[in-house]
């Protein structure tokens, strides 16, 4: 059902946890299956220095969360914004058709976190 990469990211997820006083937090709930994902960003200049996640969801949701954090770490905000759902799924060597919406969860949470970061920085 799942690729080896999905199972690897599910069993050994990267960047699980929280960041104290994050520069940006994004939380999305998946209307479809009622799951929740939260992403924390630590931004330095324009670079995402650290990123953490917490997810309540299926194997694909955990794996996509883990993958998305790995993909954005060290990237600029601009680069991170370009990450699409499809790119996350692809990086995991694909997801079962019924699970494609889980990859939306991860990319959406990231984009929410960046939005939050922009709002916070604007206020400063």
């Amino acid at each position, binding site marked *: 059902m*799942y690729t080896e990469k999905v*199972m690897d990211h*599910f*069993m050994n*997820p990267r960047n*699980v946890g*929280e960041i104290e006083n994050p520069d940006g937090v994004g*939380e999305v709930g998946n209307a*479809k*299956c*009622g*799951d*929740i*994902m*939260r992403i924390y960003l630590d931004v330095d200049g324009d670079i995402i220095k650290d990123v953490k*996640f*917490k*997810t*309540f*969801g*299926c*194997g*694909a*949701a*955990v794996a996509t969360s883990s993958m998305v954090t790995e993909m954005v770490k060290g990237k600029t905000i601009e680069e991170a914004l370009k990450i699409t759902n499809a790119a996350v799924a692809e990086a995991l060597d694909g997801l079962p058709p*019924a*699970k494609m919406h*889980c990859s939306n969860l991860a990319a959406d949470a990231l984009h929410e976190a960046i939005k939050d970061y922009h709002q916070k920085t604007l206020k400063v």
Partner: protein
Amino acid sequence: MRRVYLDHSATTPVDPEVAKLMMTYYTEKYGNPSSVHSFGRDAKAALENARESVAKLLGAQPTEITFTSGGTEADNLAIIGTAEAQSKKGKHIITSAVEHHAVLETCEFLEKNGYELTIVPVDEEGLIAVEDVEKAIRPDTILITIMHANNEVGTIQPIAEIGKLARDKGIVFHVDAVQSFGKIPIDVVAMNVDLMTVSSHKIYGPKGVGALYIRKGVRVIPRIYGGGQEKKRRSGTENTPGIIGFGKACEIAAQRMEEEAAREAKLRDKLLEGIMEKIDYVKLNGPQGEKRLPGILNVSIQFIEGEALLLSLDMMGIAASSGSACTSGSLDPSHVLLAMGLTHEIAHGSLRFSFGRQNTEEDVDYVLEQLPKIVERLRMMSPLYDQAKHSKCSQAKAQ
């Protein structure tokens, strides 16, 4: 790695004795039971023998048994077949909120085709109230279809009472007994049942075989036309090896039922106690004690999602199942758990362990060793667990 199969409500392995018997009918006694020659006659005799074994375990007569390709087909035959036979009398059907999809989807198909449906609710243990069924009855009610035992939580329904009600009012009563058949005693006569669905692969028989008990005199319009097999009730070359295997599985189940039920109930209780002791935020789904099947345990492990649990258990060789939406490919978690009043989140974290003949105390010990570690790991990742812990702490502080 140890492999522990705890998903017997989904399907069971075929009993070795059953498999051996089937082999003979696949490769040696392979005749078509409709054939005149000895190959055909041998197959026919064994087929009728199997019919007797199935009938016996139901308290029925062999002529009242129609073989089908499984529980799902039997449910469809019972429900659509009755609806079509009785459509002149009325078009109202009563069922419950916790039926298997084979019943619910079939009822909904009829609803789309001009029939009316009343779905009676269940309480928080998954139990149907006889009064609710009574209240739902209308002059144009033609069928009541209620399951014997639920496949997700194991709740056993008051079938005999509902049956009495139906019989008194002259309404056809169908019971999906796929989960209870061969596990707890059944007597179609004492239970006032008109139609009863059973399936082979839940009782160590082969997949792709089931049967519908059709009480003598009850009319059901066939769904499959052709050579007129099964007294024209279900055409198609009989799956003789499968049916013969099913018959054998019934014989074995009859012998072992009582002892095995007690044994599985003990394993189940041990697992439940262990889980309650080792893991916090756990909820038992379904009733305790007599009103449930011996072999099914359903718990909700809060703040984590069922598929993630299943995958992690699977990595440790443990096979279980879940009512989470994420495992079903549908949008909602288990309709059974929702009908019992669980929230989406709690239903999501449900786990079903269903026991079978090969399970041992060691299996339970192994699960109790692995599961807490898995739960801990997944809860670490869960945004919900944090919140709960924090609110708990603050509650504690507030006291």
